[in-house]
């Protein structure tokens, strides 16, 4: 397999875009106000960034074994990122780490309370961050 300069250019573009997404994730993590918005910023590189970097790596590495392994990593990221994001956001909503004054719509808060729900699971505002 002989890679031309075009394939190299595509691969390097993918790598640079993936790295740029990692930088934006760091910026969003520092600047955003609460857990849900930070998660929104932090999960940018988990799917698109990793996918772009894996495409670039698969073009540059030129071996079937490494290509399959990079594909495995990408598929695994796309399978597990929604699960962990769902769990973290649900726990954050229930454990008062969410700024409800910043929400546009709050469908969980509008639902009627269930009978068996433990007290303390009601949502409440997180304390504003000092500094």
């Amino acid at each position: 397999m002989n890679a031309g300069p075009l394939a190299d250019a595509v691969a390097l573009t993918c790598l640079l875009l993936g790295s740029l997404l990692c930088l934006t994730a760091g910026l969003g993590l520092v600047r955003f106000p609460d857990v849900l918005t930070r998660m929104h910023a932090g999960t940018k590189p988990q799917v698109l960034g990793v996918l772009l970097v894996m495409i670039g790596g698969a073009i540059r590495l030129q071996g079937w074994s490494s290509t399959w392994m990079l594909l495995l990593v990408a598929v695994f990221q796309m399978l597990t990122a929604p699960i962990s994001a769902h769990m973290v956001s649900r726990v954050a909503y229930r454990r008062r780490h969410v700024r409800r004054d910043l929400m546009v719509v709050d469908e969980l808060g509008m639902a009627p309370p269930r009978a068996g729900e433990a007290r303390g699971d009601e949502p409440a505002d997180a304390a504003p961050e000092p500094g």
Partner: protein
Amino acid sequence: MTVVYWLAYGMLGGGALLALVRLARGPSLLDRVVATDTLLVIIAAGLAVHAALARDPTLVPVLVVVSLLAFVGSVSVARYVGGMLVDPRGDGQDAGPPEAAGQRTGGTP
């Protein structure tokens, strides 16, 4: 080539440093979980960028391990925080993890 090298590693390093800032400052445990998850993803992307730029496929199995670890870590900490019970003493407010209890006003930690 050298320009791409420095640009990619600079952006990855900047992202990792900012994630570390959030990991140190984050007021609650879940902020730190999100920051750790992002940090591990950035580390995996950095390993992949190194493997791609150096055409060195020996680091590729490490990527699989790192992505597995990120998932297992964040899910186990989220389940740990979510499984904390309501404190039966006091006024019925949950004690929460120590970071969350320290933040609230009027709760009984």
